[in-house]
């Protein structure tokens, strides 16, 4: 039984397989920038697959300004930043299929999509994963209370208000001082809701100082650090929350409970890279980032599959996402020319225990042709996690806690190969350190240590 033949532009929808040089999954900032750079480098056969009706990714709903300060020296809104790339992609004739979802992807880079026009199977030579991330939910952090109307993650609240023209509540509290929560504090206030407070579990704020100033301080919205919501009240629609202070182990302190009456609870407690398709393709994830293990080419553990943007690591500046995607494009172009840039650690010899669930999988030791990068506990993770040692590369990382006057030191054994001093380091701001391959002294692992008072 086969479906009928229908043409969608130049693609034929049927049982046949359509060959494509590069398939980019996700038409957000990472996917768009990668596509444009690839085209610029002479790769013509590119296809972007986007599940929404329009490209732009999460930027579509980020109507506030602050995007593009680094790249364009302008303070643009999210949709404007995206439009720069969307327009350029159109001009370059890059094909972007919208309203198209990826049903399946295999390690040998077969991609099956579904759209109103039908199911299509592609065979790509290279795949770029650019699916972005999803939000951590109330459920995942187990707040006691009933399940009811009125609890929204910040991104969902933002989509309702900015895209769907729907107002979600009148009095709100926000759990989590991540940037999206802060942005929504302002947005809700501007739309006439009363935002009573923002509660942050950690003893430090998680969002950018600019947002603390312009989303909270401007409106007199208090930020209560070392606080968390310990109970949700109400049976059908939220009526209020109980908030407690927490101790140094982030456990609620008995006796500190306070009740806040509200009809809306916004949850902004973290982003998780959206890697279901990555795992389907056999890509190994780093449990520290929840994103793929990659080398300096942004190539994953599967040859020819690359990743950039929030699917790889949660970024705070979209300008950096665009740069990362452009570096990825350069690597993909080389890959296509040479029919391969070696994958991180040739998994042919993978001896990891496949009977254990993926959630439990430890980082495996790399093969001989890769240098692993090991951050200490103050840093937690880096991207890339492995490098060839033959190229200069940019190392991205975040500190786990705020520090003043600290130094990030990269070493091989006892030899310092790079270091950066920072007057101030906060978790909200990604740190990027350029490393020259000429400075590497051996094939030994690179340790990344944070030195602070």
């Amino acid at each position: 039984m086969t479906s009928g033949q229908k043409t969608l532009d130049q693609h034929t929808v049927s049982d046949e397989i359509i060959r494509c040089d590069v398939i980019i999954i996700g038409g957000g900032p990472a996917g768009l920038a990668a596509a444009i750079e690839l085209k610029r480098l002479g790769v013509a056969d590119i296809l972007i697959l986007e599940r929404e009706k329009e490209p732009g990714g999460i930027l579509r709903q980020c109507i506030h300004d602050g995007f593009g300060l680094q790249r364009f020296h302008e303070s643009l809104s999210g949709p404007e930043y995206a439009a720069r790339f969307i327009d350029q992609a159109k001009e370059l004739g890059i094909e972007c299929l919208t309203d198209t979802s990826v049903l399946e992807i295999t390690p040998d880079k077969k991609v099956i999509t579904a759209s109103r026009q039908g199911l299509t199977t592609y065979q790509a030579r290279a795949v770029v994963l650019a699916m972005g991330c999803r939000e951590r939910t109330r459920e995942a952090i187990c707040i006691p209370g009933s399940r009811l109307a009125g609890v929204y993650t910040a991104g969902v609240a933002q989509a309702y208000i900015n895209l769907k023209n729907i107002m979600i509540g009148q009095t709100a509290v926000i759990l989590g001082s991540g940037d999206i929560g802060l942005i929504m504090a302002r947005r809700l206030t501007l739309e006439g809701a009363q935002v009573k407070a923002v509660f942050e579990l950690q003893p430090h704020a998680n969002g950018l100082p600019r947002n603390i100033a312009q989303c909270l301080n401007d409106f007199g919205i208090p930020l209560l650090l070392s606080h968390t919501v310990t109970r949700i009240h109400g049976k059908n629609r939220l009526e209020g929350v109980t908030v407690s202070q927490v101790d140094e182990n982030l456990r609620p302190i008995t006796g500190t409970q306070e009740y806040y009456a509200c009809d809306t609870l916004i949850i902004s407690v973290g982003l998780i890279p959206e890697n279901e398709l990555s795992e389907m393709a056999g890509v190994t994830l780093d449990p520290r980032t929840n994103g793929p293990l990659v080398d300096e080419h942004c190539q994953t553990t599967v040859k020819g599959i690359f990743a950039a943007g929030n699917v790889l690591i949660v970024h705070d500046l979209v300008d950096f996402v665009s740069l990362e995607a452009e570096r990825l494009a350069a690597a993909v172009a080389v890959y296509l020319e040479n029919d391969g840039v070696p994958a991180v650690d040739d998994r042919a010899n993978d001896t990891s225990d496949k009977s254990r669930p993926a959630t439990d999988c430890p980082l495996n030791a790399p093969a001989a042709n890769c240098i692993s990068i090991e951050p200490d506990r103050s840093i937690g993770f880096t991207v890339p996690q492995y490098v060839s040692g033959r190229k200069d590369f940019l190392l991205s990382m975040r500190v786990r806690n705020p520090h003043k006057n600290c130094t990030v030191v990269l070493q091989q054994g006892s030899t310092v190969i790079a270091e950066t001093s920072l007057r101030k380091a906060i978790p909200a701001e990604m740190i990027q350190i350029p490393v020259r391959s000429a400075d590497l002294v051996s094939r030994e692992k690179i340790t990344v240590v944070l030195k602070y008072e």
Partner: protein
Amino acid sequence: MTQKYDVIVIGGGVIGSAIARELSRYKLKTAVLEKELDVCTETSGRNSAVLHAGFNNKPGSLMAKFCVEGNAGFEKAARELDVPFKRTGKVVVGFDTEDLAGLKALKDQGDRNGCPGLELIDRTRLDELAPHIAGEFAMFSPMTGILNSFIYTIALAENAHRNGVNYFFDHKVTGIDHTNNSYTVRTPHGLFRTRWVINCAGLYSDIIAGMLGNTDYTIYPCRGEYFILDRKLEPFLPMPAYPVPNARAGGLGIHLTPTVDGTILIGPSAEYIEQKDDYSSTCPVMDLLIEDGARIFPYAKASSIIRSYTGIRPKLVSKNKGGYADFVIEERDTFPQAINLIGIESPGLTGSLPIARYVVEMIGRKEDLKVNPDFDPYRQGILCFKEQTRDMQRSLVHSNPDYGEIICRCETVTRAEILAAIHNPLGAATLSGIKIRSRAMMGRCQGGYCQTRIAELLMQEKNLEPQEVLYLRKDSRMFTGRVRDL
């Protein structure tokens, strides 16, 4: 305004709907009065969804009888009603000599109840059946199965409805008057005069019984909390795995149960509570669930939790008494033609069809039931795109492009399925109603991606203003209005 019926069923849950369907085999004008806006709002939508074998029930009890009977015939019902069902088997695991004695007693009881195939097994056999479950030995029950309890209840209701039963949502029964040979059932939206009243009001069956002059019973709400674990763990739990039950506790112990959808349930806990509608999850229990669950399933971790939910057992025994009381299914001379079903907790789901037949038999003893020649036992559910072969999927999209639009990414639910869920035969129109019919919003992102699109579709298709969109019950408004007026 009074509507006249032969039979009024109070409560549209699995028991009420099974009875309604059974009644529709005969020429009886039947209506179901459901206080909520959809079926599955209370206990029927909040359980472990297990088809029990019957070894947990006291020999000679109605629970044992209906459980074993309901278990045996289920493939047929699942086929007729298009309900996802897997006869997975189950292991009850033990670690020490006390457990072993408990298991032997359990097997004994099961044998006496007529449960086929129960066997005590060792670790070697356990390794073959469920290698990732901890335990030194176990009892294996081959007849235990898992089903989709939402779809089952919905299917019963839809089939009953198709065969002529009228469903009235938002019809809470506020009083029943007994005059001569009939009853007048009072609701906020009108009166219903009827010959028969069947009380399947679950948690509130004692209240309804009270309206029928039967104040002998009290329902003690006993809450059970559950966690749902990510479907990534599916390969590691092929069948339900329970610890040996403790007779004094009010539930079956904290167990691990795979769902037909591939997720895993940990729970339920058991805690007597004050209010019948307090569905809160609580902190101490949540900690306990993981701790206890991990004892038999080491992969149970807090990081794999995608959702929590609670159910409330309508128990006939108080906290002090503990244990179970048998099902109460009775008709009294003082109130003839009123059948009360009280305390239908586990294994109510498993025993639902035999219970329904039993009740209809009770009616049949007093009346001459004429067969409805138009009765059609078959009900077709919403086709699940995700489970079809690629060829079938291709063909579906070709015939209906709405199948090509994936709205719920995590569970691969298409626009066609969501539209079918919105336009369901019973007319239920809440966000939860769409969820339980289509599986949308049940995945790991919990609607993070699709909820906005589904809410928009619901408003569009049912012509709702934003403030009319409900999550589950009447007061669960999702939105306050528009950002900019139209």
